[in-house]
């Protein structure tokens, strides 16, 4: 029985803008267990970054929590003071961001930047902290660590900087690592190296990762569980195999279909653009772009229908009265594969 370390319940967040209230997060619930990697997949504006920032208390000033709880070791993170936050950030919960060029302080030696969290949170002496920083640099694969520990960020390439960022995040061995599109800005070969590094370190440090991305390929390689986000809410949640081989929500179908595979003949794109969250639509937010939409999709938001113990999807297509639809060919192919996997498991 896995240890649950984070429980987010019915989170709702609004942003005040001069154009009105943007309902960025509209009732989001999920959990994180020890040692696992949860991927939150979504496109721009879906709310995935806002969700992670709320877990580390770094929301913009014009945001307002409209409801919900974020339970971390029984404490509701939405109700703690900034002082308490400063003890948690970098220590028990760490975050790495997308742009390695701007994540580091250009005027501070990187040894200092890596050592700092240890000095602040664990009370280590400068000597001890720098020694551990050197260890971390080697662990993240920076060559000539002894020399380079005294260098400055501008002397490193993008991929190297991201490794430094990871070292800083993991030096206090946090329980939760939030990674917001950490490899999106990197070349594909560098991305592959960084992802391998993260998987490796996760095993060593035993950290749980919440991984934000829009790249389904990265998700397939990194995640244990996947939550698909759209217009401020989750549409489908499941294990990585369930999401990729047995997807149930038309949006998930659309996402998977948008990516060319080795055998794609045609790409099916999802027409239109995500809704304006100043005035979110009633019902299923994906309905206006959903070619499988039914009358009820525009009237009432679908609840989560259970597909398995670990898999749920918020689509009226799973209602017992709903007609059976034929998803796109690629999805049908995956469903067949899933059936094979299920059969193999039973043996």
């Amino acid at each position: 029985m896995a240890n649950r370390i984070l429980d987010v319940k019915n989170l709702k967040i609004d942003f005040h803008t001069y154009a009105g209230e943007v309902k960025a997060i509209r009732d989001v619930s999920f959990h994180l267990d020890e040692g696992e990697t949860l991927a939150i997949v979504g496109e721009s504006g879906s709310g995935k970054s806002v969700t992670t920032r709320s877990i580390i208390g770094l929301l913009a000033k014009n945001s307002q929590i409209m409801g919900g709880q974020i339970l971390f070791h029984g404490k509701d993170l939405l109700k703690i003071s900034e002082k308490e936050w400063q003890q948690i950030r970098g220590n028990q919960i760490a975050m790495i961001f997308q742009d390695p060029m701007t994540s580091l302080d250009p005027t501070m030696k990187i040894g200092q930047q890596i050592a700092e969290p240890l000095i602040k949170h664990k009370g280590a002496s400068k000597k001890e902290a720098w020694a551990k920083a050197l260890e971390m640099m080697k662990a993240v694969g920076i060559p000539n660590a002894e020399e380079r520990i005294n260098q400055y960020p501008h002397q490193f390439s993008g991929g190297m900087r991201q490794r430094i960022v990871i070292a800083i995040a993991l030096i206090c061995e946090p329980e939760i690592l939030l990674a917001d599109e950490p490899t999106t800005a990197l070349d594909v070969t560098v991305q592959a190296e960084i992802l391998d590094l993260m998987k490796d370190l996760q095993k060593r440090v035993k950290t749980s990762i919440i991984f934000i991305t829009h790249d389904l390929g990265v998700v397939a390689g990194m995640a244990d569980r996947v939550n698909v986000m759209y217009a401020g809410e989750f549409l489908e949640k499941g294990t990585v195999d369930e999401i990729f081989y047995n997807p149930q929500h038309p949006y998930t179908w659309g996402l998977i279909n948008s990516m060319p595979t080795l055998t794609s003949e045609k790409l099916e794109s999802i027409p239109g653009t995500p809704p304006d969250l100043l005035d979110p639509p009633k019902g299923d937010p994906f309905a206006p772009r959903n070619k499988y939409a039914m009358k009820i999709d525009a009237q009432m938001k679908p609840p989560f229908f259970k597909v398995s113990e670990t898999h749920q999807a918020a689509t009226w297509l799973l209602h017992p009265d709903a007609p059976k639809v034929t998803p796109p060919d690629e999805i049908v192919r995956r469903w067949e594969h899933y059936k094979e996997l299920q059969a193999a498991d039973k043996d």
Partner: protein
Amino acid sequence: MDQDASNVKITPESFEHVEKGDTQSAEHISGPSLSFMQNVWIRFKSNKAAMISAVIIIVMVVIAFGSSFWINNSSLVKSAPQYANLPAKWKGFDWLNGLNGKIKQNGVWTDAYASVPAGKYFVAGTDYLGRSLAQRIIYGTKISLIVAVVAAFFDLAIGITYGIISGWKGGMTDNIMQRIIEIISSIPTLVIVVLMLVVLKPGITSIILALAISSWTTMARQIRAETLSLKNEEYVLAARSLGESTFKIATKHLIPNLSSIIIIQTMYTIPSAIFFEAFLSFIGIGISAPETSLGVLLNEGQKNFQFLPYQMWYPAAVLCVLMIAFNLLGDGLRDAFDPKGQR
């Protein structure tokens, strides 16, 4: 959380397929189309200090230039020694010391209007020649505003062109042009004026010439810096790939995107030009009697400052208000033009 969830009943009809309409509706953009300037105006409106400053400046401009009809040189030159050095007296303000014609002499408030016929009021008092200070201040403000307009004009005419050429061409041209600016800006403007006095008489001409030589350098530098970064923007590259001529690129693409800097920088050039004129006139090498400006008034007022402080306070107050207003306006505009709001 749906508001109407409880009202909607699920019937077999609910599961009828809905034909997806044309994709046109999927691309619909709600809300009015706001141009960049409209957005700027919305932001500017919310800045109270800037709005008040703008109003003050507009009022001052209207009064200063509108008064040209009856306050002109001849009325300024007319002196009336019998009314010399009178403090301010406003109708109906007998109870307020400072506005009731009384002045503190040897610690005692005495009525300076004792020998003045009743019914004669001076809003700001008079100077040593009995001329209405209020009229002189208004005229002086007009001169200051004229200087402001001239400085702004040079900023726009010379500063922008110089900056764009320097930034767009780059390389050796840019190098030379920047060195020239450095030379100009390293010579104190005061020295330039003094050098000109060798050939010209002190007055509005020498001031305008000095401004023509040196006031535009900051604008040129700012424009050059912004042009350097703009010329590598992809939309400029796109214009080039379409075959757009350099001149058209400058007018269609560069200047509209430089407009923020242009407007803001002009708002900052004006107070320094106004102060420049006031300073020159104050030390006697700018505008001189019988012409008047705020600087001249400060000079005259300073002579009597010990006993008749109001003669210096009033023009000083006007000068300060004018400069502060332009500065606040500049700040407000800079915040309103903040490009982050556009993305």
